[in-house]
């Protein structure tokens, strides 16, 4: 039996990526990373800033996401995100740009704990990329 399922990543502008030979996807869910294999139970969760790893027949790919929601149902994984970058052709400048704006945001006084947590996460991930 095949162990593959399909994944689709969409951002507001377009359908970013669509694959149907995926064996495993690791997503940075809000309460920790989740690895999703075929026939996983239907799940909805949202993402914190982090790295999505997609393992497929054709190899492994990694993406940076800013935020997002995932829905897994009937062996279809949909990932909705407002910002996604492929780590392969990522550009350093873009990363530092995001990093800078995140730092600025963090220095604002009127953010709540959850936002602070998300921003901290974001910075950590960005640093690890750079």
């Amino acid at each position, binding site marked *: 039996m095949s162990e593959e399922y399909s994944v689709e990543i969409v951002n*507001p502008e377009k*359908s970013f990526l669509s694959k149907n030979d995926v064996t495993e996807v690791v997503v940075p869910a809000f309460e920790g990373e989740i690895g999703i294999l075929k026939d996983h139970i*239907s*799940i*909805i969760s*949202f993402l914190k800033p982090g790295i999505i790893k997609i393992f497929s027949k054709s190899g492994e790919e990694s993406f940076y996401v800013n935020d997002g*929601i995932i*829905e897994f*149902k009937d062996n279809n994984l949909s990932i909705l995100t407002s910002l996604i970058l492929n780590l392969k052709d990522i550009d350093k400048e873009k990363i530092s740009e995001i990093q800078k704006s995140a730092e600025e945001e963090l220095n604002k006084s009127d953010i709540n704990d959850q936002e602070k947590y998300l921003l901290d996460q974001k910075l950590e991930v960005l640093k690890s990329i750079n």
Partner: protein
Amino acid sequence: MASLDDLKKRISSVKSTQKITKAMKMVAAAKLRRAQENAEKGRPYSDKMNNIILNLSNGISDIENAPKLLSGTGEDKVHLCVVMTSDRGLCGGFNTNIIKKAKLYFQKILDEGKTLKIITVGTKGYDQLKRLYGDKIIERISFKESKNINYFDADKVGKIVIEKFEKKEFDVCAIFYNQFKNVITQIPQEQQIIPLNTSEKEKNSSEDNYEFEPEEDEILSNLLPKNISTQIFKAMLENSASEQGSRMSAMDNATRNAGEMVDKLTIEYNRSRQAAITKELIEIISGAESL
């Protein structure tokens, strides 16, 4: 009758107007294709978002405690209208149609004795509304500087709306935009985004049992603000496709009209030239006869 010189001047001026409208039409056509592509590409995101929200809200049993963005404040006193128009003119009835639709709605709200608040997106909408409803406009937003429509602009509008909602400045929010059907037809739309239209919920009777991480309510309260931005973004994409389509057909008409006018003027010009020649001939002949 106008002199030959005047006619000549008019012909050349109409011709240069025609050149401009023709160029504008061509530019609009090129932009339209891109805008249309963008609108189509943007659809999966908003559709998926909608689906997830429907699935989620079906899962919520306790309507009383549902997030306010979904169920509303329970009141219906203050209406916020987000009127989305273009930043540029010369696009036919595009802006007027939206404004007309919006004004009908405004009138209804005011007749019912409710309070009206307006946010205009795009300068043209503000220009048309400021005379009648100037005191109702609480915010005006324009994205003249950004060349392409991007999600972050929409997100800005969305954040403003949500911020105002959280401050309890309004109960119901509706957005007005033109839905792109084809180049000739754009349908002005009124869409309620807060509270979310519940009638659509029935259609999707999924009985899936989802696993949620974290809890439903928390996901939902995180998702709903995003949905607002997504809906606004969708409206912006539709709007930009409609704007270009509308401009294209308007400029096409203008070019055709200019062509007709040039033809008419040319005939008039030729006639009066002929008349002048005939007149001269008659003068010469009758002069020669009298000798």
